[in-house]
């Protein structure tokens, strides 16, 4: 069965610090990978996605993620975080044939001004 593991439950950073959130998945086949963000009081929004091609994916708001197939990883990065990046971040995997998303436990990011 598919599963997703996010390494950090809560990350606290100061503004301008660099961010890397870990995500590993367990699935033997070809997958689609996603990062979603949930700002306080708002709904889940798509940050970025990987279906195929260039394993370095750029998303909105300066975020990027790298798919490393050999490590079953899809880590999220941002060179310099802002206070407005405070949110919960979810990594998700989906069988490339479609169907449901399987989510990681989420990582709460708090950015101190």
């Amino acid at each position, binding site marked *: 069965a598919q599963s997703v593991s996010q390494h950090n439950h809560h990350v606290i950073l100061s503004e301008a610090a660099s961010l890397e959130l870990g995500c590993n998945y367990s699935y033997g086949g070809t997958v689609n990978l996603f990062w979603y963000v949930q700002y306080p009081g708002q709904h889940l*929004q798509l940050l970025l996605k990987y279906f195929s091609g260039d394993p370095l994916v750029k998303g909105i708001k300066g975020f990027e993620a790298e798919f490393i197939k050999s490590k079953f990883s899809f880590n999220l990065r941002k060179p310099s975080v802002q206070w407005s990046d405070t949110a919960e971040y979810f990594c998700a995997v989906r069988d490339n044939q*479609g169907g449901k998303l399987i*989510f990681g436990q989420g990582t709460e990011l708090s950015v101190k001004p």
Partner: protein
Amino acid sequence: EAGVTQSPTHLIKTRGQQATLRCSPISGHTSVYWYQQALGLGLQFLLWYDEGEERNRGNFPPRFSGRQFPNYSSELNVNALELEDSALYLCASSLGRSGNTIYFGEGSWLTVV
């Protein structure tokens, strides 16, 4: 273009009652997904409907059920409510079954007292 819309925004029910939550997918989307986001439990997959059929079901008891209508909107029904059912219920939609991004609504808060 309207996103995924859910109603009601908030719902308070008494233990043992039934709750019905509604979802309208993005226009043109045929797949609808339901997730439960309970405090401390992350996003748990409930149900997936596509073209009016139930395609997949998460690890929830049978008192969680739903359906998809010919216009692709969907209902989630929860019978015999328990206190632990208190959560944010998220609906999502995608264009077809395979390889497409899943977009989320703002959710319906269900409180069971």
